[in-house]
Structure formats: C-alpha cells, structure tokens
C-alpha cells in the first residue's frame, strides 16, 4: 500500500503570537512546527504502515525552510519526503495551493492520501477536500479513526452530535483530526537518518497537468482586501473587593441590566 501524507509547516500559535512593530505578524520570532492535524494524519499513516505494511511519502509545499517538517516526518518513520517549492507558487490561496499539491500528487502512486483537517495559521479546512476534487477521488473529512478493509478504507467521520462510519474505495483522500491519535515522538536515530537522507525537491516544472493561471498569487481567486490585528473590545471595570462586596457588586450589575 502506498500512502501520501500532505503536511504544512506553520507558526506555533500556542505559545502566543508575536508582532512586528508595524503590527504585522512576526513569523520569524515564532517557532515553526508541523501543523497538529497534519501530524495526526502522519501518525495515522505510520500506524497503518506498522499494521499493514505501507510506504509513506510526505509532501509539503512551502519555502525551502519547510524541508524541516519533512525531516521531522522522516524522523518519525516516513519513508520519503518531497518538497514543492518555487517562487511562482507563493501567495497562493487554498484554490492555488490545492492545484499545486494535486499537480505534485499526480506524479505519485497512492492508495490513500491523508491531509490534516486544517492548519492552525489559516484554519480553513479547504485544501484537503479541494485536492480530492482536482484528483477526482472520494474524500472523507474529519476522520477520528481510519482502518483498511481490502481495497477500501473505513473511516469514522466526526460531526457535531454524531459520527458516520464510512466506507470508500481507494484511492481516497482522508482529512485527519488532531484528536485522531497521539503522534509518536521522533527517535534520535531517526533524526540522524532523516538528515542523511535525500529530500526530493520539485518546482513549477515538476507539477503535472496544472495551468499557470491556477498557481500562486495570480492563480488565487480570493484576494486580501485588508489584514490587521484583531481589535479587541476594551476592558470594562475591574474591582478587587472582599467577598460580600464582590457578590453585591455582581448582583447590582445584573439588576441594573435587568438580567435578574
């Protein structure tokens, strides 16, 4: 079985976000990590590899620095890494990104493609389903469990108040939730091997069956009109009183606002 996992390198928003003096996001000051949903997707692939035997290839699109997440994936146990990087691919929205990745994936053999549900920098959850459309294969989003059954994949697909057990013929694309599993750690030896291994680097010319008009900033239907830091509602009152006074204060406000 051949599994391809798409991963993205993202700034770690968990430890707080840092801004430049001009108010733009200071990506350099934030740790770059493998997107958590993608990491769960990778772990799912590695478990399928452990269980059924599979070749796991990891693909990322990004700046040359994004090769770090491929090394990390290989240090966890992935077999191959492919970096898709090219100046003309920059500034892509989800349409152009999914076109790019589909162009890369057409060069590969796959039974199963796994992506994360969404990336923590954009939170769009679009690229996975869009890739599946471009490749004309079924998609199952929001996977909380993935099993293989012959030539099919059986997935528990999460909804707000339920889950569906879905069966799809491979090749199929599945998007993984971070809750899917607890990703394994890299091993020290895996890290050494990952840095001794070669990473395949593909540029625009290596993408198959993709028009220039669908790539990069120029190929992106959506355009940014305005971006800014979130303007928060200002703080109201803050009091530091003893217990009884605190209670009276809250009750007073609730009465004033006709809540009680």
């Amino acid at each position: 079985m051949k599994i391809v996992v798409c991963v993205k390198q993202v700034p770690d928003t968990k430890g707080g976000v840092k801004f430049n003096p001009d108010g733009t996001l200071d990506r350099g000051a934030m740790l770059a990590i493998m997107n958590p949903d993608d990491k769960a997707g990778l772990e799912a692939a590695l478990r399928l590899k452990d269980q059924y035997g599979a070749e796991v290839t990891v693909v990322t699109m990004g700046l040359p620095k994004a090769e770090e997440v491929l090394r990390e994936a290989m240090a966890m146990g992935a077999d191959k890494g492919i970096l898709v990087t090219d100046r003309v691919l920059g500034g892509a929205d989800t349409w152009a990104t999914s076109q790019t990745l589909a162009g890369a994936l057409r060069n590969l053999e796959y039974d199963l493609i796994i992506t994360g549900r969404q990336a923590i920098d954009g939170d769009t959850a679009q690229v996975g389903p869009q890739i599946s459309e471009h490749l004309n294969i079924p998609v199952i989003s929001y996977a909380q469990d993935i099993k293989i059954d012959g030539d099919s994949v059986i997935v528990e697909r999460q909804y707000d108040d339920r889950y569906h057990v879905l069966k799809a013929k491979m090749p199929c694309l599945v998007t993984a939730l971070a809750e899917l599993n607890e990703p394994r750690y890299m091993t020290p030896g895996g890290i050494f091997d990952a840095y001794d291994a070669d990473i395949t680097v593909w540029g625009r010319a290596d993408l198959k069956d993709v028009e220039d008009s669908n790539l990069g900033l120029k190929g992106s239907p959506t355009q940014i009109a305005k971006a800014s830091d979130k303007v928060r509602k200002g703080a109201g009152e803050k009091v530091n009183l003893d217990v009884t006074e605190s209670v009276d204060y809250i009750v007073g406000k609730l009465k004033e606002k006709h809540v009680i």
Partner: protein
Amino acid sequence: MNIQDYKGVFVFAQQVDNVLSGIALELVGKGKDLAKDLGTEVTAVLVGSGVKGLADELGEYGADKVIVVDDPELKDYRTEPYAHAVASVINEYKPEIFLIGATAIGRDLGPRVSARIHTGLTADCTQLDIGDFPINPIPGKEQLHNQLLMTRPAFGGNTIATIACPDFRPQMATVRPGVMQKAPKEAGRKAEVIDYNPGFTPDHKYVEIMEIVKAVSDVEDIMDAKILVSGGRGVGSPENFKLLEDLAEAIGGTVSCSRAVVDAGWKPKDLQVGQTGKTVRPNVYFAIGISGAIQHLAGMEESDIIIAINKDESAPIFDVADYGVVGDLNKILPQLTAQIKEAMAAKA
C-alpha cells in the same frame, strides 16, 4: 465567465435528520441584509430527501425563494451527492453570492463545490459586507463596487483579514455558526418554492454509510443559551463545577467551559467555548476561573455582558470583561447563587 450573468444571494439551508440547523436561518437572515444592499433577493438551497416541508420555515424567516433538491441519494449527508447538488444549482441559477455554514458539513461541502466550479472560498467568516474592492482606491487599478467583503479571524484569532473574490462567481464563504442573527419570524410569509433535480448516478466518489452513531446528549446546546456560566482550569476540579451548576440553575443559565477543562477530561467537548470549540454570544457570559487565552476569547467576546471572576488580577480575561471581579470563586459563588435565588424569588 461573465460576472454580470451572476445575480442574487444564495444560502445553503443545512438540515440534519430533516430538521433545519440554526445556521440555515442565520444565513437566510444575513443573506437578506446583503440582498437588500445589492437590490436583489435571497434564495435558500434546501438539499435532502423528503425535505420540501422545510421550505415554509425558510420563508417565514425571510427567504424569497427556496430551491429544493430532493432525492433519496441525499438522505444523510455525503460529500459527493451534496456537492453535485449544490454545484448543479450554482451552474443552473448563477448566484453572485453563495453562503454555507462553517459546520462539520459545510466545511467539507464548501471546498469540494468551490473546487468543482472554480471560484474562491473564504472560510469561517464572522462578518460579511457589501463594499468596494480595493477598499480604498488605488491609482491605476479599477475599484470594483458591490463586492462581497468577507472578514475572518486567522492565526487562532490573533489577526483578522478581509477577503474579496473580484474575478470569480459566485463569491463563496462559509460562515461561523452563532455569529449572524436570524431575522424575526413572520408567520405565514411564503417563499417561492422551486424544485430542481440534476440527477444522481452513484460513482466511485459516493462513499457508503455503514453506520450512524449519534451521541446521546440531553444538554442544551451552549450556542442557544441566553446565559452561560463558563468555567476554566481555575475551578480546580470536576467536582467543583457543582458551584457553577448551582449558579446556572439559580439564574436560568447553562454551564460551558474552556478548552483546558475539556483537555483535563472534566467536561465533554460539546461544552467547549473557543476557537476549537463553539462560538457563543449569550446575553450574559460568566467567565469563572478562566484566564482568557486568546483562543477562548475568540469564541465568546461577542457576548453582550461578560462577567469575569478570577483570583489572578492580571488574567487576560479582564481585558474583555465588562465587569471583572478579582477574588476567590469558591467563596464568591455560593453567596452569589444564594443572593440570585433570593432576587429571583422576590421577582416571581
């Protein structure tokens, strides 16, 4: 693509088990506002099996037209037949705007449809306006009017971006549930109902539903609650949530929580408020022992009144609270609950 051919505001009227989801009416409400700005109509697209009866409700909440795609293949949500239904409606009726709820269904359907018809899709919008693009005139660049300006948070709620889709139609967005207001119900108001069926032939993209497992939950959806009593890690233990439950009962509210509480296994995920949980905007939001991580604030800061109780006076929750009380929740809550009970009894 001739952009001039695309007219009208369409919204996807999500239903589950043949019951309209709250987001369907919220989108009709928002769609009506946008349609008014554009001088056009709002059309709800109702997809399912045996769902035609829901069209009346959509009409009462403001839909001018309802396009019903009714087919046995559409009984439970599956990506492919639904994507086919919606993409076919778009190709047939050519709307200039198409809105979908940013739900577990809409966030799967939206991207598949946008990829099929080749247009842009902006995810998880919290604000939608009609305006100019570019927003301010740029010399040498044509300023387009009557564009859909889609505003959304990114980077875990740390930044906001406004997105336009000037060269493709429809302008598509998924909209976060709980953010838009539904219009007041006008009993008896009728929408024009149009039946449309593009035909459904199962192929390799149709997945098989082997089983549907519903979570058993008798808890009120926190997104519908008027008063939320929300607890964070500072509550200290699952047992201590009793204090919050007592307060919620006294004041007629519902208990919710922060991510830390869900991560600790104290409360189930469907009670979680925040970026990775639910967006709520109750009349009153009590933030108790919640420090106020930015991801949490993103899910509750639109609440009308925010009351925070926290022993750490530098907690970020105080930056958004209307009324902040620095103090020990273990001491304040029992007294507060008692006094509220008294006040409610006096009023009754």
